């Protein structure tokens, strides 16, 4: 049995009929680390809220652990762990009190499932008498993860857990998720950061409420149809302008200090270099690069 099955899920908001989620289908295997990758406003949180029984879908069905999100919401609330994107623990309670509270709400205790949170909680232990509201951003996220884990959920939903967290803490956070996976917990995580996608077993690229592609990060990258080049020159602005104007360019966009571009009917990089030289650009540097998830995402967007 799959951990999460989503079939043709749709959600429309308000009078303007804003389509937040449109005909979304995907499934998550047991013990999988599944990522929903998409920019802000793509519909990630709406999907999470429907899966955690907080929001009623307008159309379609979804099951978590085999329980329907509409009919069997009671069972789902007993078994899933949810960490909302916005910090939503009691800020006026201490770290320990928050954890204790959520443990007792689920009818368990910290001791019972301590092994699950041990690695994370050790870092929090020295602040255990501090109010949750007074923790740093990264620490808050760790505490929220602990609280979502304390009842040993079968499926863990993490809505943008690393947004607003520094790069080091983000990396640590993903390490923790990988460890949790070994405990057999299914994890569904959403993030707007493309570089985190490669940490997931499988990802769904989502935009405007629609899923554009679902596969392993490797397959998504491998499916990139044309060679991708990283280009650099003395004048970035002119470079982008000229790449855009070149008739053989398929896509071109800025990517860090380089511009990424792909060309049609081009055997090697000599041809575009020649064109750029003629356009008055100097110090041209060009090499073929492996596409990242971000490249794939941009390609899907441009289609």
């Amino acid at each position, binding site marked *: 049995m799959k951990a999460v099955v989503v079939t043709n899920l749709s959600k429309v908001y308000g009078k303007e009929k804003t389509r937040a989620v449109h005909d979304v289908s995907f499934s998550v295997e047991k013990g999988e680390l599944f990522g929903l990758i998409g920019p802000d406003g793509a519909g990630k949180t709406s999907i999470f809220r429907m899966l955690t029984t907080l929001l009623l879908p307008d159309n379609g069905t979804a099951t978590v652990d085999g329980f329907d999100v509409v009919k069997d919401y009671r069972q789902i609330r007993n078994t899933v762990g949810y960490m909302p994107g*916005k910090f939503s623990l009691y800020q*006026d309670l201490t770290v320990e009190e928050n954890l204790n509270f959520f443990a007792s709400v689920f009818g368990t205790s910290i001791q019972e499932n301590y092994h699950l949170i041990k690695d994370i909680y050790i870092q929090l232990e020295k602040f255990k008498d501090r109010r949750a509201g007074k923790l740093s951003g990264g620490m808050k996220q760790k505490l929220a993860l602990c609280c979502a884990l304390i009842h040993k959920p079968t499926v863990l939903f993490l809505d943008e857990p690393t947004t607003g967290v520094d790069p080091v803490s983000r990396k640590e956070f993903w390490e923790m998720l990988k460890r949790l996976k070994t405990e057999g917990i299914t994890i569904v995580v959403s993030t707007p950061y493309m570089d985190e996608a490669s940490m997931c077993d499988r990802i769904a690229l989502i935009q405007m409420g629609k899923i554009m592609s679902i596969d392993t990060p490797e397959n998504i990258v491998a499916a990139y149809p044309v060679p991708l080049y990283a280009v650099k020159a003395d004048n970035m602005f002119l470079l982008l302008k000229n790449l855009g104007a070149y008739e053989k360019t398929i896509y071109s966009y800025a990517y860090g200090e380089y511009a990424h571009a792909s060309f049609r009917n081009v055997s090697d990089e000599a041809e575009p270099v020649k064109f750029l030289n003629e356009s008055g650009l100097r110090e041209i540097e060009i090499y073929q690069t492996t596409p990242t998830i971000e490249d794939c995402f941009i390609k899907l967007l441009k289609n």
Partner: protein
Amino acid sequence: MRTIRFLLQKEFRQIFRNKIILAMIIVMPSVQLMILPLAADYEIKNINIAIVDHDRSSYSQNLISTITASGYFKLTGFENSFKEALHLIEQDQADLILEIPQGFERNLIREGEQKMFIAVNAINGVKANLGGSYLTSIIKNYNNGIRLELSPATRFSRNPSIEILSSNWFNNLLSYRVFMVPGILAFLVTMIGGFLSCLNIVKEKEVGTIEQINVTPIKKHHFILGKLIPFWILGNVVFTIGLLISWLIYGIVPVGNLAVLYGFIGVYLLSVLGFGLLVSTFCETQQQAMFIMFFFMMVFILLGGLFTSIDSMPEWAQIISKLNPVSYLISVMRMVILKGSSLNDIVPHLIITFVFAVVLNTWAALNYKKTT
């Protein structure tokens, strides 16, 4: 049961950590009960009077000193003409003008009658009304004095007359404080109970904690009870503080049974808290909740019979006040504290308040949805 215990533990921790709320629970009843009954007093003193005496006789002098000696009036002007005195009213230096005509003494003795003129500044209705009637009764007393002096009483009065003697029950000195303190206490219990419960759930919504709670197996009625019980206890604490203050400062000791009083307060608090919870289930932010509560509280208090008697309200207002839980509390407070009413006397109030409590709380529990 276990869940409720954890919820209560959490609520109390949060309340005791919120210094401002804690201070308000203790300070608000103390300060308001100490200050309001002393200040909010219908007995009017220091009425500014301007007198125009055209007679300047010993009788008119006598009348003026009777007026100023009464303690209610302050002579702020002694003018030569009505026009000058009116000027004082225009400048807000006088509330009343008494004009004593020329020949006051002579006409009074010779003709046995004399007319006087009182002009009242009616901008402040209560002050004008009471000032006017105080002055009239002082003049009447003065008149009786003159009558006795001029025509010594015969053994049997020629004119049959009815003498009225009244005695005031339950508040025999007609003390305004004795009347107001129980009402203000009722008002305080309502304010604290209603606002605290109302703002609490909305706060969870605003901060986002409700999102986390909704994904847990906590049942709706557990959650509502977890919110209700702490504020029910706090409401009782406020009420007890209030009773102690009215005993220590005003010497008001409930004539009736304390158990009856607490029994009614217990049911009443449930209905007020239920109302607060209901409002909070409709609101998304504390600001919205605050405004809605203010709206209802104003209506409840002004139509509750605290300041004005419900019996003298127009019929539609009397119907509204039947749906107003505050009016039942104020009347029960006065009945039990001042009159010593027993449980039997307040049964109708108790039943209606209980119905309010059941309806409001059920409505709140139904309206609180974990799913949107």
